[in-house]
């Protein structure tokens, strides 16, 4: 099992550009999450999904969009990049709520200038 994979590892965007951060898991997990981690801070939940076709907002969804067309993939879209979106982005998956353990990808470091 590859676990949770994220691409790209690093990206620099100019203000106003758009991009999609990719996340995939091969563990057949229903739940998937996107977090952002700012320096000196914990992780903040952006969006999550409880299964294909179902997504919901977390604490900090503004400026982002997600889709979940398959169990495996959960891409995060930035439409109009802003400097405030400079962060490290982590994707995670969870087999079911009662299992409680989230599996994290290695992260994507995004800089918006």
């Amino acid at each position: 099992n590859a676990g949770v994979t994220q691409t790209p590892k690093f990206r620099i965007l100019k203000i106003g550009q758009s991009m999609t951060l990719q996340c995939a898991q091969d563990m057949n997990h229903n739940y998937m999450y996107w977090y952002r981690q700012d320096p000196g801070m914990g992780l903040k939940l952006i969006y999550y999904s409880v299964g294909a076709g179902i997504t919901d907002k977390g604490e900090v969804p503004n400026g982002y969009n997600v889709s979940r067309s398959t169990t495996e993939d959960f891409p995060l879209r930035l439409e109009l990049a802003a400097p405030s979106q400079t962060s490290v982005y982590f994707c995670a998956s969870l087999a079911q709520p009662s299992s409680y353990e989230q599996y994290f990808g290695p992260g994507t470091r995004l800089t918006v200038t």
Partner: protein
Amino acid sequence: AQSVTQLDSHVSVSEGTPVLLRCNYSSSYSPSLFWYVQHPNKGLQLLLKYTSAATLVKGINGFEAEFKKSETSFHLTKPSAHMSDAAEYFCVVRTSNTGNQFYFGTGTSLTVIP
């Protein structure tokens, strides 16, 4: 509302001495509590979890934590620090009313001095 407070942003210990990383939580509902570790430029790894069973929880690499409801605390300990323990540690809470959402503390950076 639920929240997690990690009382120390940085902790330094000498190799071979005990480690204590402090975490307090706020929740009106039955919480599940977790400690995750993040080594530099890596993703997060689960150390241990409390899910309403035994209040003293043992995790990987010799770490353990005790859930104290009266103190709303879930401190992480290890009897003897190793150089490889140097990392960022996150306390995380999940409550029954939030279902699928997890709330992270701001993290404690552990330095181990040789």
